[in-house]
């Protein structure tokens, strides 16, 4: 069984459909990227999985249990980092970390000490005196220091500096190596590209794309820029060519990945002097899906 299995999930707030038939599968042991624009339903999905919200329709299975009915037992096996970390103003960061870990069923003191060191967090400061990034570190350390099967991270690095983000990536890789499953909701595409095995893109409460990055790339276009002896006239007529521009002997175009072979043949026949061939970035993939909805 996958760690998370969601199908046809619907959550309404009054007339607004925050989730509108969402499908999402997170396989055990993978790092799964959960991407979507603001307000697309990422946090709502996580809160349904945590049993904080009740879905109106559809099915959600979390670690073989019902996220609402088996909430307490399931929560012993997972850790959650909210997107907006709010701490108790009068509790120190160290107290918050210990408390959350103990409420989950215990935390590894040695791992906690190591994480405090790596994330360079001062645990004696009171909750209200932390910056956004430091509040996020408190929640991250509390989650990572627990011995759990599943980590649910809601945009966990949005407030971290680049140095700390590198530390975060390192720790997520270690978690995966240790066999843990990670559901990572994120906006930072480079992070998702660097960390995730599979990705689900959500828009308006529905999954619009899901698969490995390679699979997603396969469905999209490669961008090509070539310096040629002569520009072949039938290039524009070739199947799968988009956005062709010619500037003297230089051409630029996008090509559907399945037609790449034919296009390259045509180019080599035209005397290639220079060639840049770039796979689609996740960003392009992402933008295509987002803009399609406008």
């Amino acid at each position, binding site marked *: 069984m996958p760690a998370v299995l969601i199908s046809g999930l619907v959550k309404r707030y009054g007339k607004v459909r925050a989730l509108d038939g969402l499908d999402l599968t997170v396989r055990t042991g993978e790092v799964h990227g959960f991407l979507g624009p603001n307000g697309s339903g990422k*946090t709502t999905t996580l*809160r349904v999985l*945590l*049993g*904080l*919200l*009740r879905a109106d329709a559809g099915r959600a299975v979390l670690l073989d249990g019902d996220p609402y009915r088996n*909430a*307490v*037992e399931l*929560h*012993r096996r*997972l*850790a*959650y980092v*909210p997107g*907006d*970390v*709010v*701490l*108790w*103003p*009068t*509790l*120190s*960061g*160290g*107290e*918050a*970390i*210990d*408390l*959350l870990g*103990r*409420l*989950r*069923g215990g935390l590894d003191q040695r791992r906690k000490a190591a994480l405090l060191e790596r994330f360079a967090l001062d*645990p*004696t*400061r*009171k909750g*209200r*005196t932390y910056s956004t990034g430091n509040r996020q570190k408190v*929640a991250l350390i509390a989650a990572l220091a627990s011995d759990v099967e599943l980590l649910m991270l809601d945009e966990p690095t949005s407030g971290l500096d680049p140095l700390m983000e590198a530390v975060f990536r390192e720790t997520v890789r270690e978690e995966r190596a240790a066999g843990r499953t990670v559901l990572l909701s994120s906006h930072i595409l480079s992070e998702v590209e660097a960390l995730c095995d599979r990705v689900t893109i959500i828009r308006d409460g529905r999954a619009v794309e899901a698969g490995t990055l390679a699979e997603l790339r396969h469905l999209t276009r490669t961008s090509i820029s070539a310096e040629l002896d002569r520009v072949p006239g039938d290039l524009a007529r070739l199947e799968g060519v988009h956005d062709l521009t010619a500037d003297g002997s230089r051409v630029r175009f996008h090509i559907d990945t399945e037609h790449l072979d034919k296009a390259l043949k045509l180019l080599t026949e035209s005397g290639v002097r220079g060639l840049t061939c770039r796979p689609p970035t996740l960003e392009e993939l992402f933008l295509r899906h987002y803009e399609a909805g406008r």
Partner: protein
Amino acid sequence: MTGTMTLTRLALRRDRVPVLAWIAVISVLVVAGASAIAELYPQAAQRLALGVTVGSTPALQALTGPVFDPTSVGGLTAWRVTTMASVLAALMSILIVTRHTRAEEEAGRAELVGACPVGRHAMPAAAVLMAAGANLLTGVLIALGLAGQGLPGAGALAFGAAVSGAGWTFTGVAIVAGQLTAHARTANAIAVATLGAAFLLRALGDAARIETLSWLSPLGWAQRVRAFAGERWWVVALFAASGLVLVAVAALLARRRDLGAGFVAPRPGPREAAAWLRSPVALAWRLQRGTLLGWTVAFAVVGTLFGVLAHSVGDVVRDNPQLADLLSRMGGGADAMTDTFLAAELGVLGLVAGGYAVQATLRLHGEESAIRADPVLATAVPRRRWAAGHLGIALAGSAAVLAVAGLAAGLGHGIVIGDPAGQVLRLLGAALVQVPATWALAGIAMLLFGLLPRLTGLAWAALITFALLGQLGELLRLEDWIQGLSPFAHVPPALTGPVDPAPLLGLGAVTTALALAGLLAFQRRDLRGN
């Protein structure tokens, strides 16, 4: 000060409904009090009789203040409702000011606004303007309402001015309180504690006939404007001046601190959580213990003062043989008067403890709204245990503060009359019979939290309604079932004989039902998020 008007409009936009409700309640309360007195005591002789009774009952004066003119409807109205209306106007002002100053800073919204071309003092100025406007409107409505009842215009105006004045002075208190601490909750606590102290000074001064004490309290001034009894207009100037001085002090303090900071620099906390901090109940205790300590100290101080003072209340009778004779034929005497006074004061403390119970229960709502409930409920904590933690603190805490007040009053009174052990037991019992009634308020708050989380403020409305029913029910001769809506109407007398346990068990059953219903509803509903 740039931007003050824009911010005032923003404050109005956010809070017009609750503020108008406050204003309506206060002015309707005053006008209804006047019309009830006119209807129930139409003859001057009847009014005089009431006035004489009041004059010989220090317990009543401790609650309401002295009667300056027992013959007129206006004079009795001023006696009966001035303190109540002034306390409500003060509360309204405190809540408005804190909500639009310190609470905004704490939430970080002040930073958003402060980065705009807005003057440093614009935000507090807007809050003060809003509170001043609300008090002014209250005063005008009271004056018009009382004049509309056919009462003399000068008295009506003085009455309105007294209530607005008290509200204005506490506007000043609240704005200063908001400069001292970084927390809205603490700022409210400081301002409300000041209001409590003002009430206490006036109560002691009026009951024991020590004018100086009453003059130390803005609530004493409100009485001493003497509406409908030879108005003393210069007292109104005391309100105006004290409010202005406090606002000026706040402005000076504000210049010496950073946005979002208080006057006490934050100290570092422990590196690790204490070993006991490992359950939702422990977390609730960790979050609430400071507040509970404050309430406990306040109840101890107030209990001691009432206890020490109680015996001297009987002196009014001891010095007056005719009155003593009259009272003994009615089945009382100096000691009975002392008991009446103590019972009345413990009754007020019961209501205040009800306020604690509501506040402590609604910490649940505060934690949920601040999204601090999410991370806890995402761990292996069942919802009912999380909610039961805070509810438990509310129940145990309200019992504890009442017990402390009873002990302190018993000790104080016992030492004065030379019977500490006996009086401690007696007054502890009299304080503890209030506990089930305060618990009913916690039950109401819990039910609202579970069922109607957007309307938890109704728990406070219930408390104010119960207080008004207790204060005005007899006077307005409301029917028994209406008076009986208040749990405090069912508190059995405990000083005069053995306590009837039936109503206590009944209140306990009601509390249990309300709390369980609230818990069940909470387990079934969605958690509110951002």
